[in-house]
């Protein structure tokens, strides 16, 4: 308030007072306020100040304790998966990989992003298993994830977090959250309550349809021979400013092999990935699917119709693997909205929510002591 420069405080205090008394006398002192007037004015000031504080608290969600916030969402992940110091709150178990992406230039007509111009860019990534437990056993039916960071010239980046599901089971963050709540284990039986799961499915037909699609795709035997899907639609902008909605998929060059029954091996998937990448580089084609007008771009539970144009824009090669403990990928938040110029989010409500929730998880784990991961550097060298 009433400003005075850092270095002329003395001047203002002394000199200012003098000047005032000499040169700037008050025209005349105001008449005293009556008690009622004084009270009304003080009350008015109080109301204004309370209004400002109230507006601030309102914007911060203090008056809506039921509102779904990133913090409440991550709290729920922690209730389901536990708190594991230094680990991601979901997709906690993982290993890091490095390689490069060779663009063939075919994507440039859809997006001006540098990544789609012909040429090679370095990539760092992380394969992961869904769930908050970093020491979980590899369950072949569990969701497999692949986070990638493409490092473009001039420090520009593209980050994406994909999974091996053909569609996402939840249409918005609230549905995802409600499913987490419904899948909480009962403290007595240590099992989720089947009635709660059934009630969730009954009230979310889009999830039932998505699960049917997911079940029609039998999981593959490994991390290396499965496709990874971006699921959400994105808006691509080309050099002429024309926009197109696209989804992307990494289609494996390694031939599909069905998962063979149940296994007792705890790190089956990760050990398989390490063995395979140490034998030969692993490759995927990055394929863009282009939406037609009318295709849903804000709902990742729905597949686009067959026959949509597909553009193979280049090949991802991953040729080295590293433990989470030693790789810089551990410290990357694979926020799906870290996008280069030429790519932008669609109206899918999941995208902004993912960005917010990933950031919340990242902030929490950033301040924690880092515990050793399941796949240690020794495990990788084995």
């Amino acid at each position, binding site marked *: *308030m*009433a*400003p*005075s*420069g*850092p*270095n*002329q*405080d003395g*001047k*203002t*205090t002394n*000199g*200012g*007072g003098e*000047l*005032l008394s000499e040169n*700037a006398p*008050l025209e005349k002192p105001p008449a005293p306020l009556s008690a009622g007037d004084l009270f009304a*004015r*003080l009350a008015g*000031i109080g109301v*204004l*100040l309370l209004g*400002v*504080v109230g*507006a*601030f608290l309102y*914007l*911060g*969600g203090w008056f809506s304790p039921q*509102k779904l*916030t*990133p*913090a409440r*969402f991550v709290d729920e992940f922690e209730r389901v998966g536990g708190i594991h110091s230094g680990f991601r709150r979901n997709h906690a178990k993982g290993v890091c990989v490095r390689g490069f992406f060779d663009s063939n230039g075919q994507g440039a007509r859809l997006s001006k992003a540098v990544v789609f111009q012909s040429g090679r860019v370095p990539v760092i990534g992380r394969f992961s298993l869904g769930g908050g437990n970093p020491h979980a056993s590899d369950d072949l039916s569990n969701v497999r994830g692949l986070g990638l960071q493409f490092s473009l010239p001039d*420090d520009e*980046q593209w980050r994406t977090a994909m999974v091996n599901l053909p569609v996402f089971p939840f249409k918005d963050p609230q549905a995802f959250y409600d499913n987490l709540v419904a899948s909480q284990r009962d403290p007595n039986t240590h099992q989720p309550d089947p009635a709660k799961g059934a009630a969730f499915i009954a009230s979310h037909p889009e999830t039932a349809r998505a699960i049917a699609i997911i079940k029609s795709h039998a999981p593959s035997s490994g991390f290396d021979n499965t496709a990874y899907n971006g699921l959400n639609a994105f808006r691509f902008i080309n050099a002429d400013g024309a926009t197109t909605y696209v989804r992307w998929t990494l289609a494996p060059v390694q031939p599909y092999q069905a998962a063979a029954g149940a296994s007792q091996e705890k790190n089956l998937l990760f050990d398989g990935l390490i063995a395979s990448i140490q034998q030969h580089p692993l490759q995927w084609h990055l394929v863009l699917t282009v939406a037609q007008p009318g295709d849903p771009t804000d709902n990742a539970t729905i597949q686009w119709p067959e026959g949509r144009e597909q553009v193979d824009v280049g090949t991802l090669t991953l040729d080295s693997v590293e433990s989470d403990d030693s790789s*810089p990928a551990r*410290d*990357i*938040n694979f*926020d799906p*909205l*870290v996008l*280069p*110029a030429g790519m932008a*989010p669609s109206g899918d*409500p999941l*995208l*902004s*929510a993912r*960005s*917010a*929730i990933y*950031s919340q998880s*990242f*902030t929490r784990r*950033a*301040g924690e002591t880092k515990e050793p991961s399941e796949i240690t550097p020794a495990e990788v060298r084995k």
Partner: protein
Amino acid sequence: MSARTTDRQQFTGSMRFLHWLMAALVLTMLGIGVAMVASLGDYHRLVSIHRPVGILILILVVIRFVNRRLSSVPPFPATMSPQERFAAHASEVLLYTLLFVEPLVGWGMLSAARYPIVLFGSLRLFPILPHSLMLYAVLRKTHTFLAYLLFLAFVAHFGAILFHTLIVRDGMLSRMAPWRARAR
């Protein structure tokens, strides 16, 4: 170059312009900041505004500080006691400091986390700190703490000017008013 207190009644036009422009920006930023951390659907949109406006405030506060040092300022009203003048001066130093440090902490924490610091389109800022999650965690908490402190300092500033304007009635608001004060 030290600012002269003069017989001027008001801060200079450029000082008043910068004051009200920054008041609007800072209040907007405090609202966006507290809303975005509690938001899922609007998070991305709000963050995309928060980053460039924060950097704009950082630039403006530097311009404003230099401008402040180069200009003469009106004296405090005679109604203010030495203690009040000290409090006013201290709160001004606090506000200037917070307006400078808070955007820097924001820039620093994004640097430590190695988020690309996109202002708009392909315009990005360079990182000013090394990649360190611990550093990020500390700066992230600091950013929130300073934001609350800034909000409280604003409430105190607003309360004091209301008190002077409505109770003491010494015309303090006219020193910074966006309109030209009538000549004595």
